[in-house]
């Protein structure tokens, strides 16, 4: 089975590009930050520098691993689903589910190892850049030299391998289990409700805190993250509600492509959760954290104080955390959208045989992506504002910071570009297959 795994890797390297990218990003980020521990562990480093380095190194600890896990899991689920036919063939040839499992897990492990090796050099560069930033801001003494050592390497290989193998195990278990189960909507609804409650509690806590309290940002930011998760869980239902209101006028405006887009989204809403969730998380978390950081910086400036090392640490960490979450949300979004669109080559073929021009199919995919982005951005913005407004009210005594619209526009631009470009580019590729061949393949 391991031989088979190696062969399928060699024959179809493109198929594993998504997993490789997710694992590569995960390994690079993990090693970049863990190399700060290596740097801090060098002899003769002053306490303040060591504290900054260890604190920053620890930021991506637990939840970083979790993010890597989710990103790899989302890409692997897709690869396994694309290969259903191959799996079925192997099963009929006599492969047991255990053997299939070993094949997929073996492939994932090889991909993870390759990704980590590839990530070593970028991680060293990234670590150097981080240390340079700390040097420039005075958070770390100038004489501290960069080190890349055992902690970074073991964390990089450990986290990536663990996340890949675990994700592969789950993906193949889901795929080989007899019969498809409906998505666990009840569990998701329960989790979503809990996240919403937790988020509301976090956001309300903000009002109980003092304007200069150093932890003021924490409950608001975490509240916004939880609210984003909660709204993401309910996003399919909210998409359906939005379509019920706006579907008809949109279809009337956008012609046949819009008509098909609205019908497809309405009847597939439950399956679109995988695309909506990263969109909502991306928008919500980025909006809340970036705007809060802007408010915080302004407030410190207005009070006439210079930023302390803790303030600067806080700012750097905030931006790093947001950066990582945002990058991973983007990877997941692009990957799920790519997979969902590539999976539809057969459907596109049917539409073309029914009389749709290639332009109409592209138009339909574009219209779907636009409606999805609008839904995701609306929900994400709601979650982000719910965290941001209380924070700004307490910290700066105003409802919204002046820069908020600009930051928000930047975030929305990224969301729109990621969604629409991915969907349309993938659909365009799918249209290169002649229509008759497209309906014949079991894509």
């Amino acid at each position, binding site marked *: 089975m391991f031989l088979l795994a190696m062969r399928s890797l060699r024959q179809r390297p493109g198929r594993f590009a998504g997993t490789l990218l997710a694992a590569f990003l995960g390994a690079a980020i993990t090693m970049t930050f863990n190399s700060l521990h290596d740097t801090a562990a060098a002899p003769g480093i002053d306490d303040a520098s060591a504290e900054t380095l260890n604190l920053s190194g620890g930021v991506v600890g637990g939840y970083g691993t979790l993010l890597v896990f989710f990103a790899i899991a989302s890409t692997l689920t897709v690869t396994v689903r694309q290969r259903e036919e191959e799996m079925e063939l192997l099963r009929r040839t006599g492969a047991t589910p255990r053997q299939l499992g070993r094949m997929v897990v073996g492939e994932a492990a090889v991909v993870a190892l390759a990704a980590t090796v590839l990530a070593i050099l970028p991680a060293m560069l990234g670590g150097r850049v981080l240390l340079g930033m700390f040097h420039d801001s005075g958070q770390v003494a100038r004489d501290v030299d960069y080190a890349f050592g055992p902690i970074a390497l073991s964390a990089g290989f450990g986290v990536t391998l663990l996340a890949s193998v675990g994700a592969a195990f789950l993906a193949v278990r889901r795929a080989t289990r007899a019969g498809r189960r409906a998505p666990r909507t009840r569990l998701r609804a329960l989790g979503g409700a809990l996240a919403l409650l937790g988020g509301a509690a976090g956001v309300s806590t903000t009002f109980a805190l003092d304007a200069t309290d150093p932890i003021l940002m924490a409950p608001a930011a975490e509240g916004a993250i939880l609210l984003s998760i909660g709204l993401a869980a309910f996003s399919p239902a909210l998409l359906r509600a939005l379509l019920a209101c706006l579907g008809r006028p949109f279809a009337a405006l956008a*012609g*046949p492509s819009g*008509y*098909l887009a609205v*019908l*497809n989204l309405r*009847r*597939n809403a439950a399956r679109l959760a995988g695309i909506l969730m990263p969109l909502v998380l991306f928008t919500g978390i980025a909006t809340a954290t970036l705007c809060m950081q802007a408010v915080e910086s302004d407030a410190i400036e207005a009070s006439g104080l210079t930023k302390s090392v803790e303030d600067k640490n806080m700012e750097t960490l905030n931006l790093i955390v947001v950066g990582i979450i945002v990058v991973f949300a983007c990877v997941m979004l692009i990957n799920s959208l790519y997979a969902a669109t590539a999976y539809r080559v057969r*459907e596109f*073929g*049917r*539409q*073309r*045989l*029914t*009389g*749709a*021009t*290639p*332009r*109409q199919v592209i138009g339909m995919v574009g219209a779907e992506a636009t409606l999805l982005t609008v839904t995701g951005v609306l929900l994400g913005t709601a979650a982000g504002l719910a965290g941001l407004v209380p924070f700004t009210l307490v910290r700066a005594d105003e409802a919204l910071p002046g820069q908020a619209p600009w930051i928000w526009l930047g975030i929305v631009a990224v969301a729109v570009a990621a969604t629409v470009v991915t969907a349309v580019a993938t659909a365009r590729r799918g249209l290169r297959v*002649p*229509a*008759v061949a497209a*309906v014949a393949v079991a894509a």
Partner: protein
Amino acid sequence: MFRRNRERGHGPSAEALRLVKVGKVYRAGGQDAGKPGEAGDRESTVTALHDVTLSLPTGSFTAVMGPSGSGKSTLLQCAAGLERPDSGIVVVDGEEVTAGDEAQLAVFRRLRIGFVFQQYNLLPTLTVLENTTLPLRLARRRVNLPRAREILGQVGLGDRLGHLPDQLSGGQRQRVAIARALVTEPSVIFADEPTGALDLRSAREVLALLREAVSRHGRTVVMVTHDPVAASYADAVLFLADGRLAGSLAAPTVDAVAERLAHLGDEVYAAGRPEFRAGV
């Protein structure tokens, strides 16, 4: 209850479909080869169609038969504007099909040509009624809902308008496909093994409906099949062997079709075709 509908944008010509010396060659890699004439010499190319010339009158029901690999699917795809022939011309209802890119072909096809495929090719997210009216919507034509309902009623799906394709049997799905092919009132309806995935009873119902499309709606139907029973529903059968026309049969019966089919190889061999190879 049924009516012949003659209100079409263009005047119906007496000839629904004409092929003149249509040729098509496939290279082993799946790409189109250059000249069909050179094809026999090289093993890497397969002549799917060799100078096929035929003419079908409006309001006829023709079955195209032949063994696997005889080129019948290629013939249908070239005639329907799904494939570009390497040589020759295809004329549908007085208009030549061969020129144009995919978008132009799609625009031509959606009003002039109806399709019924073995695998139905219905859109899974659209209801029966939505699937039926989709070609009209794509063409931005007025959707005559009462007419669509009437056609769906005629194919026996009047009580299934809001169902999704998943909720229907194979025979019912194929009847939706026939309704969809009828709703645009096309010049020619092409059916590619329309009963290939159906049980006997559903197959007979579908064939009867195709027959009705000709006799009551005045459509022209071209059906590719390798089932002599299916072919016996047609007015005439064209036989194809090794990419060439190998005879025809008017007013076919099941036995006559089966008989001709069984001896198709003999005829080709007797005629001394150079491409004939044992086992093909």
